[in-house]
């Protein structure tokens, strides 16, 4: 029974990782932009969320409504003012720019919020659970999973069926040809990053509700997002979702084997996928 419990908790944890990974799937998997500050952006948004929730006594839903547009605006400005200047076939300039941004953001967050861990008050939802036989299923993790599934389905539909999605896929395939077909790639990329960081707004609220956040937490979240995208396969939104599930289940099973083995178990599964199927589960070779 404990392995069934591990599987269920792993899927629920995967829901949170999917929210980290969706933005990464869009930026890294589709646009081929390596955003090292991805995790730090999520932590920044979570800390802003903590401050807003505490200062104005906001509930989680109101916080989501406020934080997601703020996140999208940050994403738009980030792409428009920084990343569009360094995006090219060579990924190195964007890695260097976002690495610098990551360090600067961590230091700024440390200055503003100190090194203390904080969380978003959820009004009791964070402790609520359903009991199914001997297994407890948290209400909040289920909400996280449902939202992650809806975000994945929505993002996939946007990419496949909308004018914006076609423009983004075309720009990712051949940016010069896209411009010669009437697309303004820089504008498309700015909106795509707005979308990617907007999704991080959801992840930030749920991370702050489910767990604690501190200014130095970003790099760990970045690794989970990268691993999920690579396990699932670059360029596939549902691949990133499934990669998140694999990562979450691996960690949950690892934690059952030994409390100190959980995180390592996720990394080992990631390395195994890289060795056996480097294009990822859903990727084309």
């Amino acid at each position, binding site marked *: 029974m404990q392995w069934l419990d591990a599987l269920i908790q792993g899927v629920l944890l995967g829901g949170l990782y999917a929210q980290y990974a969706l933005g990464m799937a869009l930026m890294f998997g589709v646009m081929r932009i390596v955003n090292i500050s991805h995790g730090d952006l999520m932590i920044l948004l979570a800390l802003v969320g903590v401050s807003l929730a505490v200062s104005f006594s906001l509930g989680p839903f109101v916080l989501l409504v406020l934080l997601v547009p703020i996140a999208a605006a940050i994403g738009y400005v980030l792409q428009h003012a920084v990343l569009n200047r360094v995006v090219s076939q060579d990924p190195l300039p964007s890695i260097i720019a976002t690495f610098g941004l990551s360090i600067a953001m961590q230091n700024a967050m440390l200055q503003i919020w100190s090194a203390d861990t904080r969380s978003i008050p959820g009004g009791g939802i964070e402790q609520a659970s359903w009991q199914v036989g001997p297994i407890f299923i948290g209400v909040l993790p289920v909400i996280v999973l449902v939202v992650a599934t809806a975000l994945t389905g929505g993002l996939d539909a946007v990419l496949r069926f909308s004018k914006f999605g*076609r423009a983004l896929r075309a720009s990712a395939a*051949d940016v010069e040809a896209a411009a010669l077909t009437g697309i303004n790639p820089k504008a498309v990329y700015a909106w795509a990053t707005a979308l990617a960081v907007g999704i991080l707004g959801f992840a930030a609220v749920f991370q702050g509700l489910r767990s604690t956040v501190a200014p130095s937490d970003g790099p760990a979240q970045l690794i989970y997002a990268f691993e999920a995208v690579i396990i699932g396969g670059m360029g596939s939104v549902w691949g990133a979702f499934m990669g998140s599930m694999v990562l979450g289940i691996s960690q949950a099973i690892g934690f059952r084997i030994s409390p100190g083995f959980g995180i390592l178990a996720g990394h080992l599964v990631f390395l195994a996928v890289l060795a056996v199927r480097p294009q990822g589960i859903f990727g084309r070779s």
Partner: protein
Amino acid sequence: MSAPLLSTHGLQAFYGDFQALFGIDFEVAAGEVVALIGANGAGKSTLLNAIMGAIRVAPDMVRLDGAPTGGAAPHVMVAKGVGIVPEGRRLFTGMSVEDNLRVAIDHSAGGNDAWTLERVYALFPILKDKRRDLVQSLSGGQQQMVAVARALLNQPRVLLCDEISLGLAPKVINEIYAAIPSISDAGTAIVLVEQDVGLAKKASDRLYCMLEGKVTLTGKSADVSREDISAAYFGAGHAVA
């Protein structure tokens, strides 16, 4: 000839310090088919790229309807009604044939909807059968048809075609070139960059021959002799009225 729809005036273009074009004067009128011929490295593709804004040039060097457009970004040129079939096709791999075409519909020049999916499928019927296939699974000729159809769905008033016969079988080239009269009959000006001189002469109303970044010959295609072209193509300066 009527007033030019698109023209260049003393156009100079550079790749860094290297000057690729030296004072090109070029023009094409509505409904006219103009061929640009010349050896590899003559500057034909560079001229198209400069017109499209892919290479930065001074505003007055390119005019559309008499208004300066030099240096405008490629997507702005498309919105103004200049479309291109780029060298090497440059299709969006990983996307279906129809999605490639829909990208062009999504970003077509305003005020004109002469070209529809149905119309380009009528022009290239094979594309309708292949519309759900990934574009990279098509043959070279079919991919070239997608590239032409995609450019047409941008609703261009001027269509620039860069080496559309390159690497294709003669039968396929004939199929693609057979579409040109029906495109120009609708009033679209066509600029054909072509290495096959015979094909270029046959398909165009006028031609320009380029050599080392300069125009060495211009005239009506029917009037220009093979000897004139040969001299302009390989070296001696010629001008045919």
